């Protein structure tokens, strides 16, 4: 044999363990101890405690003023505007994004070019520019009408100024949102296996059904996390509507801040906490929606936090009992 020396280890060379292998079957496996992890945990906990302590005790934050403002009607009105603008733009943006993605993936070169150009233009222009542009545009055209091109108008908006501002804000945000959503949706559709398209075609499923029931639900698995990211950006992006004279959450706080300059910091904290609450709600909803669309993608669904807590407690109890027994 031409093997280099030492390349093979025969059984006789192997270090003999102190226990013969038959005794091993009954052995309990001791979990690996990780002292580094404990030290890191302790350091982080100290830092967190310091941060929280500072947040609570530093007079700079004026928590009493914060609680004064937190549920003031002006703030809540602003919050309502933020929620409305976000909701409308999120839905319109997603619908627009789906249409743009379909156009981009279609066989028609014209549709593909239009979709590409739209996404290119809207992603290049800052949102604030789009909003202010639309704002001036709406001032120029006092009534905005929707109808057949060059034909009769089907319905038009020219009611109160607020309604117009709202429309400008929603249109601006939706136009912008759709450009990003288009890419998110397109990526999701492309992530679906080609075999799925073939199987659906081979079964003769109608085109619309193929998209709605076969391809899109599978695409949603990758669309949801990306779109939620987008949505969180949108929630914060709504603060820009202040510049088209719509008083959203941030706008209300800003206005109050100029009236009560001493309260700027607590007002900003009020806004921060509200945005934190909104993104948290979105994240919780995201978890359950993702879980819903994960059906079938994995052999078993990820546990909900409640289930995790329950199994965690059961494990802990079992472990304590085991440790006690040893």
């Amino acid at each position: 044999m031409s093997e280099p020396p030492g390349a093979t280890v025969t059984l006789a060379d192997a270090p003999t363990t102190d226990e013969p292998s038959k005794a091993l079957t009954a052995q309990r496996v001791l979990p690996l101890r990780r002292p580094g992890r404990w030290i890191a945990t302790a350091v982080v906990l100290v830092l967190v405690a310091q941060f929280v302590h500072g947040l609570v005790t530093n007079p700079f934050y004026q928590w009493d003023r914060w609680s004064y403002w937190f549920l003031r009607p002006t703030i809540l009105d602003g919050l309502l505007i933020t929620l409305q603008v976000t909701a409308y733009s999120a839905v319109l943006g997603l619908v627009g994004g789906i249409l743009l993605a379909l156009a981009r993936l279609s066989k028609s070169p014209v549709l593909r070019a239009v979709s590409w150009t739209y996404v290119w233009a809207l992603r290049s222009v800052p949102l604030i520019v789009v909003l202010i542009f639309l704002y001036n545009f709406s001032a120029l055209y006092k009534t905005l009408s929707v109808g057949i091109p060059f034909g009769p108008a089907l319905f038009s908006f020219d009611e109160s100024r607020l309604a117009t501002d709202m429309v400008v804000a929603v249109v601006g945000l939706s136009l912008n949102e759709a450009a990003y959503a288009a890419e998110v949706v397109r990526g999701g559709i492309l992530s679906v296996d080609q075999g799925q398209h073939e199987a659906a075609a081979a079964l003769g499923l109608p085109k619309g059904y193929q998209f709605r029931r076969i391809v899109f639900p599978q695409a949603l698995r990758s669309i949801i996390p990306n779109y939620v990211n987008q949505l969180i950006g949108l929630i914060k992006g709504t603060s820009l509507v202040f510049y088209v004279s719509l008083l959203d959450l941030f706008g209300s706080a800003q206005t109050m801040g100029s009236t009560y300059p001493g309260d700027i910091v607590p007002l900003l904290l009020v806004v921060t906490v509200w945005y934190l609450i909104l993104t948290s709600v979105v994240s919780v909803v995201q978890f359950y929606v993702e879980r819903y669309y994960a059906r079938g993608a994995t052999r078993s669904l990820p546990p909900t936090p409640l289930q995790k807590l329950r199994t965690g407690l059961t494990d802990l109890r079992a472990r304590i009992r085991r440790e006690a027994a040893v």
Partner: protein
Amino acid sequence: MTADTLEALADAEAATVEVHDVHKWYGTHRVLNGVDLTVRPGEVTVILGPSGSGKSTLLRVINHLEKPEIGYVSINGELIGVKRHGERLKELSERAILTQRGQIGFVFQNFNLFPHLTVLDNVAAAPVATGKLEKPEAQKLARELLDRVGLADKTGAYPRQLSGGQQQRVAIARALALRPGVILFDEPTSALDPELVGEVLSVIKDLATSGTTLVIVTHEIGFAREIADRVVFIDGGKIIEQGPPSEVLDTPRHERTRDFLSKVL
């Protein structure tokens, strides 16, 4: 719906398949080079041939997943994917092609089940989506078909919770749900572990004896010998020889067939 009509739905009328002088290019690469093939109702045809010889392409041309550049396919005399337009052939609308595919079942090597739908919904989807059955009837039919492939207890599972052999049997039930006149199999067992091949082959054998027209691409020579009425050997996009298994497999007339068989046997 009575049990009789359901029975009738499960067992379709066997179809005749005719492939007429089909040529297919990918760019400049000629993949099918004048294929003529007639499959009579209830006949089981096994297609053999080396890798890259055009077997999958031929099956995909039959259900018009691929368009041939020259030639046509007909099922029970009805042209597939095209219509006569004077002297020439004109392509049908996508919608019309989708409707025609209801007569042609297709079973893929990689199953291609819909992972987000339960086994029952995988089978019941097509008859509902194409408007052939109402949902409760489709589900009843799906249950019967799943029973037939031995998976009555898996209706609520998702495809990824099944073994490969079970998934392929679901795919066969799904193809049967549209009551196709012919079922095409593209290497139905080559993605399976050896011990799972048998369960799928036995389901196909069942279909063969029940009189459905089957066209099967496979490398399982023993299986071909057992169930084929006819074996077709393809190489270089052409049918080299065809005939009953006893002829083609045991006393092949062509050098290339002998060569191929000596490699796979």
